[in-house]
C-alpha cells in the first residue's frame, strides 16, 4: 500500500530474508522471541462496541457509522444533570479525582449516604437515589430523589455547624483569619469601581471638549453673546446685510459671509 509503512511490523520477515541471502551470518538475539510472539493485527476496523441502540436506516448503502465509536451513557447521567441543575453551587465544591487502587466501587455501600472512601457530594446523592429505587419496594424516582436529597442536606448542615464551631474554637484560642472571600470580593469590586470612575470622568471631560470644539465661539463666547448689547448686534447685522439674502428667501447654497 502506498501511504502506509509496515517496516516496523515486518521486522522478523526482513531479518529472515537477510539471513537467507547471507547478508547477516547469525540471527539477532530477538529473532526467536519476536518469531514466537507475533505482533497483533493492525489497521483492522471492527464494529464499535454498542452502548446504545442503533437505528438502522431503511436503505443501508454504506455502513459508515457502524465502525465509529459510540458515546457511553449511564442511568446516573440524567440524575446528575437534575441534581446539579437544582443545586448549581455544588459544582463549585472542589473534587478529588485521584484514585488509589481503582476499586472504589467495591468499597462503597449505598444503603447509607455517607461513605468512608468517598467524600459527600452530588454523586453520593445520585448513587443513593439509584440504590433506593432498586432496593426499596414501591419507591418512585421522585421519592428516592427527595429522600436522598434530605439525607444530603442533613449532613451538609452538620458540616456547616462543625465549621462554625471550629472557627469559634480557633478564635478563642488565639487564631486569626485573613479576609473572607466575600471581603476580598468587595475589595475587588471597590477597586474596579474606582478604576471605572476615573475612566468615566475622563470620558466626560473629553466629550465636553469635543462639544466645545464643534462651535466656533465656544461655550464661553455663547454666554457672552447672550449678555452683549442689542445695539452692537444691530450694527454687526447691518455690516453684512447686503451679503445676506433678503427676507423670505431660503439661503440654499447661498451667500457665504466672508470675514
Amino acid at each position: 500500500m502506498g501511504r502506509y509503512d509496515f517496516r516496523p511490523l515486518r521486522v522478523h520477515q526482513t531479518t529472515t530474508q537477510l539471513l537467507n541471502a547471507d547478508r547477516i551470518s547469525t540471527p539477532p538475539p530477538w529473532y526467536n522471541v519476536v518469531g514466537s510472539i507475533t505482533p497483533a493485527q493492525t489497521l483492522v476496523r471492527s464494529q464499535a462496541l454498542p452502548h446504545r441502540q442503533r437505528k438502522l436506516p431503511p436503505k443501508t448503502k454504506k455502513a459508515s457509522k457502524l465502525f465509529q465509536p459510540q458515546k457511553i451513557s449511564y442511568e446516573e447521567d440524567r440524575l446528575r444533570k437534575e441534581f446539579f441543575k437544582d443545586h448549581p453551587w455544588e459544582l463549585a465544591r472542589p473534587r478529588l479525582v485521584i484514585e488509589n487502587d481503582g476499586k472504589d466501587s467495591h468499597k462503597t455501600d449505598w444503603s447509607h449516604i455517607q461513605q468512608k472512601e468517598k467524600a459527600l457530594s452530588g454523586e453520593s446523592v445520585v448513587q443513593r437515589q439509584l440504590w433506593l429505587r432498586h432496593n426499596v419496594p414501591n419507591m418512585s424516582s421522585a421519592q428516592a430523589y427527595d429522600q436522598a436529597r434530605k439525607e444530603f442536606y442533613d449532613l451538609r448542615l452538620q458540616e456547616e455547624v462543625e465549621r462554625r464551631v471550629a472557627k469559634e474554637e480557633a478564635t478563642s484560642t488565639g487564631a486569626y483569619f485573613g479576609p473572607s472571600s466575600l471581603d476580598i470580593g468587595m475589595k475587588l469590586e471597590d477597586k474596579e469601581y474606582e478604576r471605572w470612575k476615573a475612566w468615566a470622568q475622563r470620558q466626560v471631560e473629553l466629550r465636553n471638549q469635543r462639544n466645545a470644539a464643534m462651535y466656533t465661539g465656544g461655550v464661553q463666547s455663547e454666554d457672552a453673546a447672550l449678555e452683549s448689547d442689542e445695539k452692537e448686534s444691530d450694527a454687526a447685522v447691518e455690516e453684512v446685510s447686503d451679503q445676506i439674502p433678503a427676507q423670505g428667501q431660503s439661503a440654499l447654497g447661498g451667500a457665504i459671509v466672508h470675514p
Partner: protein
Amino acid sequence: MIIRSAIRRHSHRIPTLPQLSWTRSLATEVDTETIEQSLDNSLRETHSIESQIQEKTIQIVPQIDARTHATQSLEQDGTAETYQQHRRRQKLTNPMGSTISPHYEPHTLLTHPPRPSDITLELLLASQAHLGHKTSHWNPMNSRYIFGIRQGIHVISLDVTAAYLRRACRVVSGVAEKGGLILFVGTRPGQDRCVVKAAEMAGGCHLFERWTPGSITNGHQILGRCRTKVVDEFDREIPGFDEELEDRPVLKPDLVVCLNPIENWVMLHECGLNAIPTIGIVDTDANPTWVTYPIPANDDSLRCVQVIAGALGRAGEEGQAKRKEKAAAGNITYDPVKLGRAMPTRGARGARTGGSGDDARSQ
C-alpha cells in the same frame, strides 16, 4: 579541653541590675514614648541577664588536633547519648496516633514498580490509562482499541491495554533472557526517573534527552567515540580487547521501548530501516504502525507511563535473572561473538559485545 570560667576573671566587672522605671498610666490616651522606653528597658534587662548567665556557665569547646584537624570524640560531650534517647522515644511514640489506610504514593511506582503479574484493569484505571484524546484528534487506525466516547474524549479499552502490555512484557523478558540490548526511551519531562529505573532493572540502556537523528543510521559518526566492552556470561568485563573493538561496527539496540512515540518518530523510523523491533505506548492520536508492538494507553499521564515502564522493566529483570541462572548452570542462551585473539581461560565461552554477530552491513 578548654574550660572557660569567666567568673574569676570578670567578677569585678559584673554589672548591677539596672533600676527599672515602671510608669503606670490609667489615662485613656497612652503615651507611646513611655511604652517604647519601658520596652527598651525590659529588653536591655533580658540581654544583661542572658549575658550574665552565659558568663557563668561552663562552655565546653572541643579541642582540635593540630596535625589531623580532628575534633574530640563525641562520646565525651553526650551527643551519642542524646541520639540514643531520641531513638528510644521514637520507638515509643511511632505506634501512637492514627493508622493511615493504604493509599496511592507516587514514589512507590519508581521505588517498587509493579510486576507484569500485578497488571490488573483496576490498576490501569487508577493510573488513568483509559483516557484518550479529543474525538476530533483521533487516528482511525486505533479504532479497535477504543471503548467509546465520554465527555468528548475517546476512552481506551483497558482489557485491550492489559493484553497488549502483557504481550510487550513477554517480548522484553524474552529478549533480556537471550542477552539482547534493550534501549528505554522517554523524552517527556518527568519520564527520566522511570526510564532510568526500567533500564537499570532490565540491564539495558536509557535515553531521556532528545534522540540525535542518525544515531543508528549514522552511528559511526555520532556514537563512534562511545566506549564498548566485552563481557562474559556473568556480565563481567574481559579486558584486553580494545584494539579489536575499535574495528567493530557501532552497537545497535536489539529492542527499543519508546514511551512517547509521537515525539520520537525519527528514532522509530531509523529502527524500522535497520530491522530493530520496537515497543511503544500508542495513544488515540498516535500511529500504531510506527512500532512493532503497540501498547494502547494514555501517554500524557505520568502515572500511566510509570506503571507501563515499571512493568516492562520488571519483565526485563525477570529475563536477566533467568539468563544468569542458566549461565550458572553452564547453559549460555545467546550466540557468543567470535573474536580474533586467544581468549583468557575465565569466561572464555560466553564473550559478547552486545548486539548481533558479525554484521556484513557495516555503517
